[in-house]
């Protein structure tokens, strides 16, 4: 005997409504595939192109606390803004990324990256210079590669010195699609 679906849903809603969760996660569909989205009280802490939750739950629990639960309500604001972004109705995100658990250098890089506007691109070296470490382009690349909240923190806007796309944790096709959506490159 399994529990009635509505009882399950009611518990998941109540858990979030009572503020008992360290992390709530859910899925959202997008033109670049199904995304797993996780949020803490501080903001969105994970957007993953790998929607398989088993790959993420232990890491989320270690980073943010063991009360990790699938619950859709806390994720609604992020889902809503992502929908608008993909429908060309939003160019900046109001939801805050929760980067509190990341190493200081990575936070610095991702904060700086947040200043690269919609439709523009930056280079790894340029970003390194902007944080005052002009020789740290490789380390900047590493920090971007580990960006837990792609799209909202726009690591797709960082390209190689020659303008080539270079790399993206979600795959170059997705990077190309995001830059094309923003009009930064031609389809």
């Amino acid at each position: 005997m399994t529990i009635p679906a509505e009882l399950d849903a009611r518990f998941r809603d109540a858990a979030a409504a009572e503020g008992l969760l360290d992390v709530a996660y859910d899925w959202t569909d997008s033109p670049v595939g199904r995304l797993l989205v996780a949020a803490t009280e501080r903001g969105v802490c994970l957007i993953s192109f790998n929607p398989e939750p088993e790959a993420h739950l232990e890491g989320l629990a270690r980073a943010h606390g063991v009360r990790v639960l699938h619950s859709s309500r806390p994720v609604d604001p992020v889902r809503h803004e992502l929908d608008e972004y993909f429908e060309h109705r939003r160019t900046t995100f109001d939801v805050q990324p929760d980067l509190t658990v990341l190493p200081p250098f990575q936070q610095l890089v991702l904060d700086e990256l947040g200043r690269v506007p919609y439709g523009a691109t930056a280079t790894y070296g340029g970003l390194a210079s902007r944080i005052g470490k002009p020789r740290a382009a490789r380390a900047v690349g590493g920090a971007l590669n580990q960006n837990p909240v792609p799209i909202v923190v726009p690591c797709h806007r960082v390209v190689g010195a020659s303008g080539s796309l270079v790399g993206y944790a979600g795959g170059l096709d997705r990077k190309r699609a995001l830059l094309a959506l923003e009009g930064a490159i031609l389809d």
Partner: protein
Amino acid sequence: MMDSVATIPPFEWFYREQRDDVFRYLRRLLGRQGAEDAFQETFLRALRAYPRLEHGRHLRAWIFTIATRVAIDERRRPVPVLVTGEVGAEDVEPAYAELEPLVGQLPPTERAAVVLRYGYDLPYADIGAALGSSEDAARQATSSGVRRLRRRLT
């Protein structure tokens, strides 16, 4: 070395692992309607306490402890609760299946002890923990519950 059994799992995993059995247990104690309210209360209490757990051992006994306390609280409410014997015969021991329809008439502590022992095969130490008493007290509650049931059967 990290003891993987003792690591506290993400709540989602723990919840998925236990939710069906906990619901079934609460239905035996409280009937369907009561079980739905008690189910949510059980897992909300578990969520509140979850960050304070020191290890992931005995999580099953722990959630049954909470469920038992919630059920006993529910039973102490003045509103009478109708208990139905709607458990499938395939998921209980044959001897227990005979007792099942009568278990609902036992006092709350004996009822919980009998269901945990014969319905879920929990050791007396865990039942004692669930009832907030000792292993001996759990053994006693179980056997006095069974004696009471036998008297009713004969």
